[in-house]
């Protein structure tokens, strides 16, 4: 059995913003690390003034990947989508092992792509 940091355990056991918000599936960002069996989908909803109003995610992955999704979604929501966390932020905040960085990058990719997608769609509408 692997050892995980307390922060990873906390987010793994109590993931924040897990699941895809209903009716927002069009603003999706995906990331995948097939060799590690990790797959991540983020959904973001942008409101007025470039503010992230909702975020959700799904993850097929190890505890560190799931914790990264949870923590990153919480950070993105709290900052209103202004400062999106990077994989290195996730590693620092959660105490990820060095081999988990590639999986945090998958989370970063998915989150950033979802927010970019949401912005683009909002711009197309306005």
């Amino acid at each position, binding site marked *: 059995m692997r050892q995980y940091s307390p922060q990873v355990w906390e987010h793994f056991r109590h993931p924040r913003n897990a699941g895809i918000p209903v009716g927002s599936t069009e603003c999706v960002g995906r990331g995948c690390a097939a060799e590690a*069996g990790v797959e991540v989908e983020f959904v973001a909803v942008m409101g007025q003034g470039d503010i992230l109003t909702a975020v959700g995610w799904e993850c*097929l992955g190890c505890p560190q990947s799931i914790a990264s999704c949870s923590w990153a979604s919480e950070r993105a929501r709290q900052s209103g989508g202004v400062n999106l966390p990077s994989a290195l932020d996730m590693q620092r905040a959660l105490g990820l092992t060095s081999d988990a960085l590639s999986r945090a990058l998958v989370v970063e990719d998915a989150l950033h792509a979802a927010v970019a997608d949401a912005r683009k769609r909002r711009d197309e509408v306005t």
Partner: protein
Amino acid sequence: MTADWPIYLDHAATTPLDPQVLEAMLPWMQSMRGLGNPSSTGHCYGQHAATAVEEAREAVAALVHAEPAGVVWTSGATEADNLAVLGAARFAGQRGRGRHVVSCRTEHKAVLEPLKQLEREGFEVTLLQPAADGSLTVEQVLQALRDDTVLVSLMHANNETGVVHPIAAIAEGLRDHAAVLHVDAAQSAGRLPVDVRGWGVDLLSLSAHKLHGPKGVGALYVRSRPRLRLEPLMFGGGQERGYRPGTLATHQIVGFGKACAVAAAGLDADAARLVDLRDRLWSGLARQGGVQRNGRLDGAPHILNVAFVGVHGEALEAELQGLAISAGAACSSAEAMTSHVLRAMGVADDLAQSSFRFSLARTTTTSEVDRAVAQTADALERLRAFSPAWRRYCETGAPMQGGAPGNGFSPGGSKG
């Protein structure tokens, strides 16, 4: 066990020592009663120990229907496998009888690694490819034979999947061939009937700690009539007909003998109970949907290997802290750690990665099985709630790639 320790369902790895075995062993660890060297039969200390060793030899031989004279004590099944594979092949190779060996990709590492060593020594090894359910046919084995085949090494019950090879029929097919048949019965002895003489097996590996005996002792059965000869791995005082020199560990051997006697007495009843428990476990897990049984329905009674669709093996393992089970690939890198057995059966990497072996013993209770099902169900529900792979699986109702048909694949909640 201690109240907060996990439920132990890893009996294919090792089993708890039977209290009767412990009781039998204790006198042999006492200073005077257990003192004698079984080879020093010139005085009563040694004679006393030698008698105990010979009684144990009879008990071990009786469990697998072999002649006691064929039993060679070893440190376990790993050593027995090494002695059998290296010893038989080298003996034949050195006498110009041939340098070809047949085995299977799903064998234990204790056979596969010595086979690699034989390759380094110039032997040619044919590793048979099992079917998707892990099975091997007699025809496959016979077709692989050549005139220069000197050894066929096949396990009885597989330690990861419980799949049973048709040893009796294979032995029958080999009757007119000069090749020696070695069988690793570490998982089957004490759980399935093993009939060395009836089947015509030449070499058979056993391990005490797999059947409620002590760790660190096992045996290689070496056919004594007509005498089968092996190249020994070690050289020394000539004990065990020269196959395995070194002072015998009386307490370990006595424990192994007692474990075999207890197993033989309860064999049929224990096996029937294990089948019931295993089937109860399987139907409970299958009820969760999206589970695949790796192996066959008619395998060894104590092993159930299950792949769970739509979850990552490492996450499921972390969720199942309350269960001591064995992960198919307890590692985030599928490449590095996927089980060679599941891989040989063609199980897709994602499923192999979320495969777990549950293994039971006569000490396992119905309540333990039910709690294991409940804990697994909770873990699956939690992890699948946010799994994109599970959502896709539910939308399409289709098995993930690699789900071998006909081995218990159970889509969306059907009973196995």
